[in-house]
């Protein structure tokens, strides 16, 4: 077994629990974490004792997305009106953004099932990780969202595939929060369970899958995943990827500059307040649920 630093790898009950393990940063994704995660997927795929992978996050959330401090290229020396980091050419920037560290198709095309176990925040890139798993179980406190679309970043076509055209656009162009109930309604998750039963629910599925011969599971996974690829998912994701590069490079001064300034002069909290303040209350956020009298 490898020596992982930013994830946990715990074999149990015919499967393995891979835990994104940076709870102090709500499991924000770093490049080194992604590297470990993909290595862990390979390790689990090659281990005949492991029939299914369960992916979760440590602490109170699943994953808050890409770590804004280490992976985003968001620098205090942005050059305006160019909308580019000082002393970088567009060619440099293009090369930078085209590195596909997330490799979400690696999850999707894995030959063993991956089950996402989501509690609390699943934001941005964290939400994509959850969506690309083959089965996703949400705790009742789960919140999915892509707030990054508010500061010049992109959604993924996987939302459209799962939630359908109108639902995906509704949330993909605003970054609005979605609670577990709405996620279930639009098809982002398979089931919602109480938070204290989340892992038990996932590993009971693992054990059911383990009763089916591995070759049959592999073929039935492929009928779905390769079928979707053939239907055009791979094409859509190929375009998606270019769109993602484009989205990250197209920064408009009047939208972006105040956010960057808030971030570097006053910190992340002020930045998030400035970015997300206009959108509050979130229609499906945990607080608005209380306001709606649902709790």
């Amino acid at each position: 077994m490898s020596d992982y630093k930013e994830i946990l790898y715990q074999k149990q009950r015919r499967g393995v629990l891979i835990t994104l393990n940076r709870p102090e940063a709500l499991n924000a994704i770093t490049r080194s974490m992604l590297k470990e995660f993909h290595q862990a997927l390979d390790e689990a795929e090659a281990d005949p004792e492991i029939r299914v992978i369960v992916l979760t996050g440590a602490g109170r959330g699943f994953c808050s997305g890409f770590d804004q401090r280490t992976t985003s290229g968001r620098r205090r020396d942005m050059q305006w009106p160019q909308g580019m980091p000082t002393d970088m050419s567009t060619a440099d920037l293009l090369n930078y953004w085209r590195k596909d560290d997330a490799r979400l198709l690696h999850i999707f095309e894995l030959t063993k099932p991956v089950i996402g176990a989501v509690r609390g925040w699943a934001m941005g890139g964290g939400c994509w990780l959850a969506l690309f798993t083959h089965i996703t179980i949400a705790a009742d406190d789960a919140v999915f969202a892509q707030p990054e679309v508010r500061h010049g970043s992109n959604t993924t076509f996987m939302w459209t595939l799962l939630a359908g055209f109108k639902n995906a656009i509704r949330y993909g162009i605003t970054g609005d929060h979605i609670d577990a109930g709405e996620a279930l309604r639009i098809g982002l998750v398979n089931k919602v369970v109480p938070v204290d039963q989340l892992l038990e629910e996932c590993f009971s599925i693992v054990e059911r899958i383990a009763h089916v011969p591995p070759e049959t599971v592999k073929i039935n996974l492929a009928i779905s995943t390769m079928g979707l690829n053939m239907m055009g998912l791979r094409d859509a994701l190929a375009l998606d990827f270019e769109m993602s590069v484009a989205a990250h490079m197209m920064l408009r001064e009047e939208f972006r500059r105040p956010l960057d300034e808030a971030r570097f002069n006053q910190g992340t909290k002020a930045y998030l307040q400035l970015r997300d303040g206009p959108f509050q209350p979130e229609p499906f956020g945990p607080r608005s649920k209380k306001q709606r009298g649902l709790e």
Partner: protein
Amino acid sequence: MSNYKTILYEKQRHGVLITLNRPNALNAMNQDLLGEVDHALAEAETDPEIRAVVLTGAGGTFSVGEDISGDEPATAWPYGIPQGSSLVYEYNRFRDADRRDILGRQLYRWEYPKPIIGAVSGWCLGAASWLALTCHVTIAADDAVFGQPQVRHGANTDFIWVALAGFKNALRYSLTGDHVDAKEALRMGLVNQVVPKDKLLEECFAFVERVAHVPPETVKINLAIATSGMEMMGLRKAWTLNAELAAMAQLSKRQEFNKHLEDAKKKGGVEAFLEARDKPFQPEPFGPKAKKRK
């Protein structure tokens, strides 16, 4: 009939000859010319006397591609975009222009309900090569030279090269911008036939007259079986991605590759720009001069 300024529109022998007519600029394509080609195609589409369109260039050459003369705003280095502009603005501009003017026009010609026959002699470079290659039938004179030298200064190829010449042949030429003579073009499948230069239009209109013996509805359906089928097979998807990549290619200028070209143009005009750009690639493996040396 409309009054065209940058093209000629001459009905003859069951067809129409549309001639790119800026011979002083080797028929370089500007927005006026491209707009008039569209307009002329729309005119020919509704004229029941016209059964096929022949597209050629004036003065013995097809076209050298997009017109790159004229002043461009100076580039801010190292950013590689025009001074005082922003990446978001330039990006939007390129993408919109590519969809509307390049892909939009290309799809209009591709899906055109009458055959368009490209009659290519002399230079057929850059975007003009795309224009010639997306014609339904392309006949080359023996002096035709195809090439995409724009890839040498931070621009892109078009997937039609891959669709016609195949993966390896297309890459061989689109990574370098190297010239392709008529014979090599025939070998790779870029053109249907190579004929002596003085027989080019005769050969094309002989073909138009053969087409005219077939009922128009049948011709239309058989065109669609090929063109719509290619779209269904994925050509449309490939072109959609192509449009994105074109925008990126044109904006990712790198100082060490591009600045000296821009400086040369500022100092010595288009000629100096071309000299700086193309000299390292000479002699061209299939250029007309290389042939004479053999």
